[in-house]
């Protein structure tokens, strides 16, 4: 049985990754998950300098999902390289570093510092809804997305994945812009901007007022956008949004995703990634699928 997938010429032992921001750099999950079994660890976003993130409360529960407004808190690229990448080096899994910034220059600074590091791919976060400058502004506009994609591609030593925002009228346009500007892959969806109000206290549930909605609640939107993107571009699409089970992962693959990522459900069950990997193998056995590639995009 072949669960291997390939993105930008790089083989992954299986298509199951972690969604950025839901798994740290793997350190907090290694007691639950054998990281060697993952297709890839996608790290939490890292910026050129340490970012403090937003005030608390930063998370809120919603029906079948959750809102978060962490605000991309991270220790900065220098400590990240020294500590997080050193940690990940111990494992036999692909490492994808999620990169964030408030300006093209800030993104490029991180990309350059990663150029001689043991990193397999870069994921450029142009879709975080929870920081005031940068991030999502690059992901909601075709011109801005094209510009940052080109700039990153010029500097990057590793293949580049552009992580797209679902908070757009037409995801196809954004995916095509990323492809045309040289992106090696796109990943989607980031969270959908949402809000929750505590009606007894008459205040927002999140200090940031709005946050990003994730979890099984948004899966149908994610599957639709992955399908649209996969039919609009030829580069690989990494699908995510509410994946809780192997069935969910396969739904994304049948919609056209080359790989998938488990996000918010890591919080519900720290073993989710492994269960998804094992469930995909079980599904392949039951359905007599020898190569995962044979079902990719099979529904259209």
């Amino acid at each position: 049985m072949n669960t291997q997938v390939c993105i930008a010429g790089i083989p992954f032992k299986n298509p199951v990754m972690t969604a950025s921001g839901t798994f740290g750099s793997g350190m907090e999950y290694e007691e639950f998950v054998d990281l060697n079994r993952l297709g890839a660890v996608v790290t939490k976003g890292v910026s050129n300098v340490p970012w403090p993130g937003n005030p608390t409360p930063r998370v809120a529960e919603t029906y079948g999902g959750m809102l978060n407004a962490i605000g991309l808190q991270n220790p900065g690229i220098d400590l990240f390289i020294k500590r997080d990448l050193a940690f990940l080096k111990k494992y036999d899994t692909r490492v994808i570093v999620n990169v964030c910034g408030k300006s093209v220059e800030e993104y490029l600074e991180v990309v350059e510092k990663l150029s001689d590091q043991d990193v397999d791919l870069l994921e450029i976060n142009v879709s975080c809804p929870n920081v005031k400058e940068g991030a999502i502004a690059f992901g909601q506009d075709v011109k801005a997305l094209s510009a940052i994609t080109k700039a990153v591609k010029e500097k990057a030593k590793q293949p580049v994945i552009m992580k797209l925002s679902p908070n757009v009228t037409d995801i196809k346009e954004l995916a095509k812009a990323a492809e045309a500007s040289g992106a090696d892959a796109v990943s989607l969806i980031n969270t959908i901007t949402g809000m929750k109000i505590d009606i007894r206290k008459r205040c927002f549930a999140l200090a940031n007022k709005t946050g990003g909605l994730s979890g099984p609640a948004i899966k149908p939107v994610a599957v639709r956008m992955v399908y649209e993107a996969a039919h609009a571009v030829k580069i690989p699409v990494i699908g995510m949004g509410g994946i809780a089970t192997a069935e969910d992962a396969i739904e994304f693959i049948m919609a056209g995703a080359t790989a998938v990522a488990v996000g918010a459900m890591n919080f519900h069950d720290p073993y989710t990634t492994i269960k998804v990997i094992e469930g995909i193998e079980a599904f392949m056995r039951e359905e007599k699928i020898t190569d995962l590639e044979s079902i990719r995009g099979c529904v259209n």
Partner: protein
Amino acid sequence: MAKEKQTAAVIRQECIATDIYSMWIETSIADVSHPGQFISVYPKDRSKLLPRPISICETAPGRLRIVYRIAGSGTAEFAGYKSGDPIEILGPLGNGFPLDGQDALLIGGGIGIPPMLSLAKALPGKKTVVAGYKSELFLTEDFAGHADLWIATEDGSSGTKGTVLNAIRENHLTGSVIYACGPMPMLKAVKEYAIEQGIPAWISLEERMACGVGACLGCVVKTTGKDEHSNVNNARICKDGPVFDAKEVDLT
């Protein structure tokens, strides 16, 4: 102290005050936990995906006790569990209290009182517990034999009328180290008091959490020093805490 998510079994549960429930759970987590640590409890209601962090009240071999308040429909679900029912838990989580205190002053407010029980049982030497309630008491008899217990109630129906600080001052209570858990206004007052008296204080914080294991960065607290993990003066309550040296966290 490896963390584990497991389906444990409810041994028994009772309502010990209005909306306050005491539940004993049969779980191997009991044997690797430490006073001040907590467990994440996951509702079975599949519309609710995030766990509820609940502090460990006390343990016995192979079993632990939680005492919690119904704060919403998630905890209301837990309150309906009967003997033998399965319960989804993850733990033990967090750092817990340091146990090297002598002549300790333990301060608990409301649903911050339960973790003081396991602490009182674990600490050596003389222990004084100050428990603050709105009005209705709970767990008071459990402290017998483990600590001297002083009570404050907001309505004055038992003990000192007012806050735990009122009780401390009225009864000239003191100690060489303070441990506290309770609502933020109480923790602020305790911190202030500890600084004023020059007594070291360990306080247990709470915040909305998602992962419970330190990955999501949902439940941070500002710290006075730059902590090693965040690099930005933001400690994780679920992982670096919930217990902090009062001087090292910014409660404003």
